[in-house]
């Protein structure tokens, strides 16, 4: 077992503790409003995890995570609005559609790097949003489509969303522990070298886009069955900003960072709303400050503080040697 696996495992265990704490929330909170906030927080955490798989682990800075959430939302939304299909059919359709479109986009953008990838994906996101806003006969444009609730019981909806979040987190852990996880990180660190070592870069990049798109689509589909409305606002560029903020504030390229970041962003958004302050203003400022000064995000800060408090000065290099030797 190498250092990367140990790091991933530690982050995974911490995230399980965090998820267990979240699972206990309905025992203490009965207010449907507060549960709703946590459900939305889980939605953002899912998008953040999916984006982190692309950006943090594979190095593909796509700007289209919410476009896939919107594809998922409209997938199930149109299935129920036009054909009266229940969520049990609509959500799998949504996952399938967003996975296929993710695969298509991933395959197309394989040759593009850095700025060009960001531009292509943001253009893709805008096209999707424009189509949703303008294809009135299919999507009802800006009015959005009303969608049946997945469960009239908030607690039930809460645990369904949590189950999805846990499944994604566990799945991601096993993905990262497998060879596939190492391939993805190798592509992030040096694409040319990865290709030189025999990694099929085109295939694994496409896989990353497919999986990330499917998770986003799943999350978007669940979200509309909770909120009851599929609207183009799901894919707004500000939503992409919130997803970026979750990942950057929590800690990019870690398992725990995006999860906690999603919760922080949603809770803080509700808090700032009380003060009449636009939450995006604060988050955008935090994104700039974190990227500029604390690249590792909150998780990195916590880890450094932990090492300083509980680790002996010499312990860190020694442990690294041990990790490398194992």
């Amino acid at each position, binding site marked *: 077992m190498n250092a990367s696996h140990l790091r991933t495992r530690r982050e995974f265990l911490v995230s399980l503790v965090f998820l267990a704490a979240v699972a206990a929330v309905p025992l203490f909170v009965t207010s449907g409003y507060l549960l709703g906030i946590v459900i939305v927080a889980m939605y953002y955490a899912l998008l953040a995890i999916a984006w982190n798989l692309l*950006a943090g682990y594979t*190095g593909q*800075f796509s*700007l289209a995570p919410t476009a896939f959430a919107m594809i998922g939302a409209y997938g199930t939304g149109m299935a129920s609005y036009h054909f009266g299909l229940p969520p049990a059919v609509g959500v799998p359709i949504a996952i399938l559609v967003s996975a296929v479109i993710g695969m298509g986009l991933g395959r*197309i953008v394989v*040759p*593009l*790097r*850095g*700025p*060009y990838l*960001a*531009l*292509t994906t*943001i*253009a*893709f996101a*805008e*096209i999707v949003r*424009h*189509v949703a806003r*303008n294809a009135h006969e299919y999507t009802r444009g800006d009015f959005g489509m009303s969608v049946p609730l997945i469960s009239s019981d908030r607690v039930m909806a809460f645990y369904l969303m949590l189950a999805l979040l846990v499944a994604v987190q566990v799945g991601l852990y096993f993905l990262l522990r497998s060879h596939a996880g190492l391939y993805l990180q190798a592509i992030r660190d040096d694409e040319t070298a990865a290709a030189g070592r025999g990694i099929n870069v085109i295939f694994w990049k496409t896989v990353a886009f497919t999986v990330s798109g499917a998770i986003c689509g799943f999350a978007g589909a669940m979200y509309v069955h909770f909120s009851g409305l599929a609207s183009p606002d799901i894919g707004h*560029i*500000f939503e992409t*900003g919130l997803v*970026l*903020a979750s990942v*950057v504030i929590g800690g990019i390229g870690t398992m725990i960072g995006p999860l906690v970041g999603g919760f922080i962003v949603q809770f803080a958004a509700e808090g700032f709303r009380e003060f009449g*302050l*636009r939450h*995006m*203003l604060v*988050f*955008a*400022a935090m*994104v*700039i400050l974190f*990227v*500029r000064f604390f*690249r590792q995000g909150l998780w990195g800060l916590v880890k450094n503080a932990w090492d300083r408090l509980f680790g002996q000065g010499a312990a860190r290099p020694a442990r690294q040697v041990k990790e490398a030797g194992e």
Partner: protein
Amino acid sequence: MMTLELILQGLVMGVFYAMMGIGLTLIFGILKVVYFAHGESFMVGAYTYALIAALLGLPLPIALASAVVVGALLAVIVERLLIRPLYEKFGDWQQMRDEYAIIVTFGLSLFLINAANQFLGPYPYHGPALTDIARFQFGDIIIGGHRLVAGLLGLLILGGALWFIQRSFWGKQIRAVAQNRFGASIAGIDTRRVSALVFMLSGGLAALSGALLVPLFHAQPDVGMVPALKSFVIVVLGGMGSPIGAIIGGLILGVLESFGAFYVSYAYRDTFAFVILIAVLLLRPQGLFGERAREV
């Protein structure tokens, strides 16, 4: 005569797109990164013009000039605080400068949009037109008075900017840094000052473009988003780093949009640009006049 009128309308919009694009292409030229907050220079220019001309009632040339100054100042401050680490030594991000630039300028763009929303409100600010004449008519061709005057003024500024970049001493320094930052610094060029100059120039041009468009679009917090994305399209179309390409790309996009909105679909008028962007990146990554825009 519909065709001629559409071409003229498109060319006028193209002038404003080109003013945005020329700054973005210069920034890409010297830093090789995308700058997502370019639309907010446009937004700041629009607000400055609207506030000074409509609220304070000062003469329009003063309003235009102050829009340029405010836009240039904002861009220089941003360059100093957030962009300079890209070409100074900067720890971890030295390896991931594309990613740093994407996140930091995307965050900056959202920050400025929401700051405008917080402090100036989400409602539009109106600004006065440059001329009282409602429309000009040449034979069958009709064009709005402000559109024509602003377009001609913009064309003049574009010509000046092009002369500055291609012929002046400063412009030569800019192009030297774009070709090879290290080589330029050996030749005695102060690369920091050149970078600041490029940001000043592009911020000022974008702000002027915003100020000139206020009577048509009004100043709102997110008014710069669509022009910024379109200026990326222009830059990719014309070729990253090529000022002439940006101008021609801007004019082409303006005319294409004008025809697309009339003959294809008015609702999708803002969508064509993104389709063009993806098509160019995939089919002709070097653009019309630029360096190769992707590595395979």
